[in-house]
């Protein structure tokens, strides 16, 4: 969908940099979990979107529900990259950091580059709070911030004053600080205040609270206009992004999957039953779908992950599309049941919002380390198709594609997303559902006759008959079954035939998916081949490298099992293949296994996304300069 970007407009914007010479900015809000940082970030995101900017965000919150105030591990942050050009990554280094307390400052300092603007709430740098952040000295008072532009504002006091008229005491007023700072940032980047005003008015039933928050927002905004610090605190309006003609909204990955399921169910004219057990970062998909029965999706919160997938399989047996969703450890628990869905030849969507492992690992941190599990992680020869989403908006289309495959081939499908995509937002051109082809299934029609184990020769999908239908009363199970009758069979040749059929079925998916394309760049030199949420960062890194004259191209996979049919041939046209992954090399394994191709690896397992810089360095290492083509 990001193809909707308007190339002409893009060109037109070139050279129309804002006054400061930049088309886009990276802003990072940071403070205590209790400071409402995520809300502030979301509001700023909405404003930038409605202001016409493209954007990408990176929420980064602590594992604790409400970590103790002022601690380093309790710092909650929200980063947004926005502006008047195509934005694919949340940005490596913030141009502006707003730090509500000492911990928020020190924790984020390593990310900044010289010249960055730091806004701090002056009042928060008390001795006690410095100690909370394990600081011996006040960084505002030594030379540690010398290379940055530091603006000390007494946000706490200014907010307090702004909200006093509404009867707010000093303590309550602290809860409006985030709106004060938001107001200032909206002024700084010349973004509209109206959406936030509307949101506040919708959200707060209590009049005093509502007015106080509005006052804080406006006060922050006014402060920008009137402050005497204009040398550093200048307005940096960004041009509108060169967007194609469409309606846009912001979307997170969790929303993308949820909306994709709603749309896919509708396109397939099939009720969807979403069965899940809460787990970070997968739960938000469940939350988005709860109580949308009238849109064709019902949810079931099961007693555990096994019950969740089993209920989904039961639903699929009964003619609805069963969907289950979890993260690594929960997916591990589902593997036995996946085998049942394969054996019974039932459609099923398994969504894995990956997080850092092994075991409980770091639930709030992102990672791409469940690819092995997705492709190889079952007992028996039990292949299933695997797809991966690359961005919040892409979740929508990839989810629809997953459903298409599940219903076409009568197979469970694993859909990989991750904690980063789940929480990040981007600007998304709202698709017109009427432009999507309907999703076909093997549901029997009035004319269907014979056994439910007839299989379409091109997809090997069997007939999806369901209880209630008098014509197909049948029994099925996880024991090996006769390839024709479905009865239990221990016959040797039959087991071979069934195993071959299951392998051929998944292989046949490749016949229906488009050839792998090159995202940018052209063959010959270095191919950067990857999957999943690294897309945006890789896009920017490759783009910059190409602009810097390197012979590099980007290939990003949606289909991981089976791989697109042309991939081997495509990679053969490159001199070097570099596989950057947020794991120890799982796609690298898959490429060696399936294509016997030698790959270079770039791996990072820190719970954090790649930075553009990291990738550019690796590209530098592997790519040659592009030679001008000489045509005879």
């Amino acid at each position, binding site marked *: 969908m990001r193809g909707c970007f308007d190339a002409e407009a893009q060109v037109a914007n070139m050279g129309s940099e804002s006054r400061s010479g930049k088309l886009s900015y990276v802003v990072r809000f940071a403070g205590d979990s209790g400071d409402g940082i995520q809300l502030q970030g979301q509001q700023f995101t909405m404003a930038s979107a409605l202001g016409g900017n493209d954007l990408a965000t990176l929420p980064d919150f602590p594992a604790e529900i409400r970590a103790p105030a002022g601690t380093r591990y309790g710092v909650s942050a929200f980063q947004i990259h926005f502006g008047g050009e195509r934005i694919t990554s949340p940005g490596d280094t913030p141009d502006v950091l707003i730090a509500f307390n000492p911990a928020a400052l020190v924790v984020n300092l390593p990310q900044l580059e010289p010249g960055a603007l730091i806004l701090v709430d002056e009042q928060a740098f008390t001795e006690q709070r410095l100690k909370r952040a394990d600081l011996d000295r006040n960084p505002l008072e030594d030379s540690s911030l010398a290379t940055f532009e530091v603006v000390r504002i007494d946000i706490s006091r200014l907010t307090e004053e702004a909200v006093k008229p509404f009867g707010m005491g000093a303590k309550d007023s602290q809860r409006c600080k985030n709106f004060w700072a938001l107001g200032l940032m909206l002024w700084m980047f010349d973004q509209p205040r109206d959406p936030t005003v509307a949101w506040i008015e919708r959200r707060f039933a209590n009049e005093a609270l509502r007015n106080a928050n509005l006052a804080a927002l406006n006060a922050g905004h006014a402060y920008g206009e009137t402050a005497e610090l204009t040398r550093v605190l200048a307005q940096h309006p960004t041009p509108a992004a060169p967007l194609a003609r469409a309606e846009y*909204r912001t979307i997170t990955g969790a929303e993308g999957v949820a909306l994709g399921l709603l749309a896919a169910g509708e396109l397939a004219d099939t009720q969807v039953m979403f069965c899940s057990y809460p787990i970070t970062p997968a739960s938000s998909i469940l939350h988005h779908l709860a109580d949308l029965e009238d849109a064709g999706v019902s949810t079931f919160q099961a007693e555990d992950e096994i019950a969740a997938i*089993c*209920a989904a399989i*039961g639903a699929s047996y*009964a003619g609805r599309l069963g969907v289950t969703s979890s993260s690594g450890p929960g997916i591990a628990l589902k593997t036995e049941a996946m085998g049942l869905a394969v054996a019974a030849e039932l459609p099923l969507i398994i969504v894995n919002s990956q997080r850092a492992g092994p075991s409980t690992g770091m639930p709030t941190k992102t990672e791409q380390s469940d690819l092995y599990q997705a492709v190889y992680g079952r007992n028996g020869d039990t292949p299933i198709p695997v797809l991966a989403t690359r961005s919040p908006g892409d979740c929508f289309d990839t989810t629809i594609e997953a459903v298409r495959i599940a219903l076409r081939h009568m197979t469970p499908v694993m859909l990989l997303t991750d904690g980063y995509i789940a929480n990040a937002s981007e600007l998304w051109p709202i698709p017109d559902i009427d432009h999507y082809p309907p999703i076909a299934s093997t549901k029997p029609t009035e004319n269907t006759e014979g056994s439910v184990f007839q299989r379409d020769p091109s997809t090997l999908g069997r007939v999806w008959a369901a209880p209630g239908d008098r014509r197909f009363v049948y*029994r099925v199970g996880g024991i090996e079954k006769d390839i024709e009758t479905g009865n239990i069979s221990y016959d040797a040749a039959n087991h071979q035939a069934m195993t071959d059929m299951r392998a051929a079925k998944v292989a046949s998916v490749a016949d229906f998916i488009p050839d792998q394309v090159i995202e940018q760049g052209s063959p010959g030199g270095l191919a950067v081949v990857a999957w999943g949420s690294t897309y945006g960062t890789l896009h920017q890194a490759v783009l910059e490298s190409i602009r810097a004259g390197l012979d590099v191209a980007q290939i990003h996979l949606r289909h991981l099992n089976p791989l697109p049919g042309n991939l081997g041939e495509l990679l053969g046209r490159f001199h070097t293949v570099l596989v950057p992954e947020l794991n120890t090399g799982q796609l690298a394994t898959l490429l060696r296994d399936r294509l016997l191709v030698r790959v270079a690896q770039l791996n990072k397992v820190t719970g954090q996304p790649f930075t553009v810089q990291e990738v550019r360095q690796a590209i530098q290492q592997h790519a040659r300069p592009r030679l001008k083509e000489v045509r005879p």
Partner: protein
Amino acid sequence: MSEAVRELTFKDYATDQEVRWCPGCGDYSILKAVHRALADAKADPANTVFVSGIGCSSRLPYYVETYGFHTIHGRAPAIATGVKLANPALDVWVITGDGDGLSIGGNHLLHALRRNVNLNILMLNNEIYGLTKGQYSPTSRIGTESPSSPHGSLDTPVQPGLFAIGAGATFIARAVDIDQKGLPVILNEARNHVGAAFVEILQNCIVYNADVFDDVVAKKTAADTQIHVVHGEPLVYGKARDKGLRLNPRTLALEAVTLGVDGVTEADILVHDETNPVLAQLLVTLRAPLPVAMGVIHRRQAPAFDQSFVEHKPAVRRQRVRQLLHKGNILDRR
């Protein structure tokens, strides 16, 4: 639907598959009773689903000419929940064993019962893992000798009925495999119950735990070793129906009395109230020398989980999806 169905006999509910239990296994009689119950209920095969786990008992769905799903070990209640939620109009049966339902599957059974999902759950309890060749199960009595407990098991067993009470079950019954008269009736009581119905069936595994229930089910003594409870009727038993159960309010326990002895009259005998959960506990835990309770031990009305799901309105669906796609603030650049 109607005509074809009305004419079905109990044989029509058998499939063409050869039944593969050991000769003499109690599962045969249970299967027969299931066929009988379906015929008695004029059940529509197309709207009936049997879901099972893994075990000898769990093979039963292959032999019932309805929809059937032989799934994985212990998970039948979860899968059946999915089936029922997906299509509340179906009559969904769960077939499980003491191992399948109370060992690996204990959690799903707990939650199906406490949610009161409208399922008919039959637990074929032979106090042993049959299919895996006779290891002791969670219902095996202490001291059961088996390949995995050659000198006798140490674990205190689960009592299926008491477990169901703990789960808040709204229907609890018990029956004997060979009771071809009573069992189909109880199965249909379970079928008619709105909510999760739990039926424990004492089943004889003649290969690995032969006659373990003999002290209770042996025909000769059955009149004295079993009490068939009926709602609203006094708790009497014995060949001469001269024995009964009385509540000792001091010990809060049931005791056996004989009518006419020590001045005991029918008025002393407790009347069965199937809606009372405390009486359910008293009855479900009865053991020799007291008679073991058979029949519908507990039944009470409570909202069934599956009824609460909202019906989908198809006409507005695409519009609704479109509306959801447009949720939130829109930047209109058309």
